[in-house]
């Protein structure tokens, strides 16, 4: 068995944060959060947890480290937030370093452990509150902190300037018009059927995904628009940092930019965490029980287009594929059946990973762990040997993977364990195999 103290990783954000802490400040912040922001839920979790250890098997970190108990969900809660509750915040600064590393990098907030706990304890929630305390103490891994700062300053994750955003869209429109002479990416079209939103990394690194989405919308004859103003980025690293104030700002901008355009619904690109932010965390922070504008994930949207026959498949993708179930849209939003239906409409054969659907293991990138950057890359690859084994067993080459985060996480695992596989987005595949009528 190892201990968190044995595996501390150098991170400038954590180190600088801890250096300015005093025991008094820790005590003050911890109690402020415990009294002011948490309530019966956390208290009942701490008190009712029977330390039975049934949740251990649930967690890919525990499984991947050959049953090292310090990675079990109950150990993570006991060693972090529950300890702060017991000690009323009277801990040394060095302890906060350890707790921050556990909360930010050794838990993906994937909530798989919920399927194992008889009492119904939500470890993901407990870890989020631990992160909230770390954020208020200013002890946050540097990379994810930077990303959250980008959100705060520019309202998008990648420090994309307002004109660069418009530029990227027009550039993709221009490119696509070689293939589809009449294709448009309409900006700020009032009253459009659909408002299409993406995450910051799309215009920055994966611009072809915007091209492909526009091509699909065009071929399907969908009345859509994209906003030219902030709010276009649906991603949310502030949520994972614990900066809930900024999380609220981001979600408000997202919803309000859609409301201003009086669209019928928002379609979100293939990302999981952004979706979590609109149905689970950001919306609640803003006091919405339901979405003020209906929101669907790309999986649902593609499912509609395919079942309604708006998109026709010319030839199915050859060779077997497997399906990565992204926690935030599967365990988070029940899209496992639609994902499978879409996959079977696109691909010849599917080999399921075991376990799958809402019992699937997280990719280990989620919960902002991948956004904690290079210092923690090994945490993710070694921490998810379970996923590598799961993938290897399928023996396939292509992984259907409708989540940006999962892509990043899986690519790293595939590289580290030399699996020779390749994750693909649904949009990418649809674009490749759909019928593209002449002269559109």
């Amino acid at each position, binding site marked *: *068995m190892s201990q968190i103290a044995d595996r501390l990783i150098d991170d400038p954000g954590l180190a600088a944060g801890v250096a300015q802490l005093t025991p008094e400040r820790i005590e003050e912040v911890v109690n402020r959060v415990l009294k002011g*922001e*948490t*309530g*019966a*839920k956390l*208290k*009942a*979790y701490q*008190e*009712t947890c*029977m*330390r*039975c*250890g*049934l*949740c*251990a*098997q*649930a967690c890919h970190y*525990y499984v991947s480290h050959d*049953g090292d*108990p*310090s990675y*079990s969900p*109950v*150990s993570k809660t*006991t060693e972090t937030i529950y300890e702060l509750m017991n000690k009323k915040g009277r801990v040394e600064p060095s302890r906060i370093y350890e707790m921050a590393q556990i909360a930010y990098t050794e838990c993906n907030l994937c909530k798989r452990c*919920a*399927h*194992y*706990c*008889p*009492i*119904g*304890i*939500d470890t993901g929630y407990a870890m989020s509150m631990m992160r909230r305390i770390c954020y208020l103490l200013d002890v946050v891994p540097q990379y994810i902190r930077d990303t959250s700062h980008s959100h705060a300053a520019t309202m998008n994750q990648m420090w994309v300037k307002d004109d660069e955003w418009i530029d990227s869209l027009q550039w993709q429109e221009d490119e696509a018009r070689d293939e589809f002479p009449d294709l448009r990416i309409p900006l700020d079209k009032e009253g459009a059927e659909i408002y299409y939103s993406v995450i910051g990394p799309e215009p920055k690194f994966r611009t072809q995904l915007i091209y492909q989405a526009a091509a699909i919308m065009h071929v399907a004859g969908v009345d859509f628009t994209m906003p030219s103003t902030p709010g276009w980025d649906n991603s949310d690293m502030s949520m994972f940092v614990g900066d809930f104030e900024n999380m609220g700002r981001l979600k408000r901008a997202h919803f309000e930019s859609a409301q201003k355009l009086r669209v019928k619904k928002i379609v979100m690109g293939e990302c999981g965490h952004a979706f979590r932010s609109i*149905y*689970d965390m950001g919306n*609640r*922070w803003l*006091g919405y*029980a339901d979405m003020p504008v209906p929101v669907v994930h790309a999986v649902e949207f593609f499912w509609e287009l395919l079942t309604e026959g708006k998109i026709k498949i010319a030839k199915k993708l050859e060779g077997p594929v497997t399906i990565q179930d992204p926690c935030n849209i*599967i*365990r*988070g*939003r*029940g899209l*496992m059946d639609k994902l499978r239906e879409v996959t079977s409409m696109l691909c010849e054969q599917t080999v399921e990973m075991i376990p799958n659907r*809402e*019992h699937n293991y997280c990719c280990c990138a989620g919960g902002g762990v991948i956004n904690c950057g290079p210092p923690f890359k090994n945490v993710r690859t070694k921490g998810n040997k379970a996923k590598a084994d799961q993938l290897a067993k399928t023996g396939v080459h292509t992984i259907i993977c409708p989540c940006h985060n999962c892509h990043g996480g899986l690519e790293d695992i595939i590289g580290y364990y030399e699996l020779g596989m390749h994750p693909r987005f649904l949009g990418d595949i649809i674009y490749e195999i759909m019928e593209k009528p002449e002269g559109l």
Partner: protein
Amino acid sequence: MIEIYTFVSGPLAWVAWSIFVFGSIYRLVSMYNLAKAKDSSSLAYMSLPYSLRSIFHWLVPFGTLGWKSDPLMTVATFAFHIGFFLVAIFLGAHVVFWDTAFGISWWSLSDTTGDIISFVVIGACVVFAVRRLTLPHVRNVTRGKDWFALLLVALPFVTGVLAYHQIGPSLLMTTLHILAGELLIALIPFTRLSHALFAVFTRSYMGSEFGGVRRVRDW
């Protein structure tokens, strides 16, 4: 000795039950008020059908991933809880007690059955203890409070079995047994055993969120 027995089985029993009843009400009410003040974004999602759906699935042995992951623990947990209630409510001696104290009477277990069930419950406690000592992922998180809770539930059964089999001075054993039972009852609201009060709500919330918000199973 007999005075002590009379005191323990009379006034002290009323004290223990009062602490249990009022303590439980206090804890439930204050927890609910706290939830209303601080957890409205969770309370808003509470749903009776999804709560019941979740509770039902978790009441089925091996009906969930958690119960499947550790069969010995699952058997011990169900045996313990079912045995606990059977003996507490339907043991012959207890039925007589309910009758004299509250004037209510019902069907009772035969002495032999009660005895066997008591051994099963003690066996389950042994399983819990052995897990805490030997399984790394349980030992690692076990604290004094967890041992105390286990001791509290085991003691009435151990002393009860000793008294029934007349091991040791009978009156002393019976007195100790009643004392242990009273201690257990009085401390339920204030120890780890408070899961008896709260687990139904934490389970319900998890069921509501997984059913209503996340639209998936929570088992």
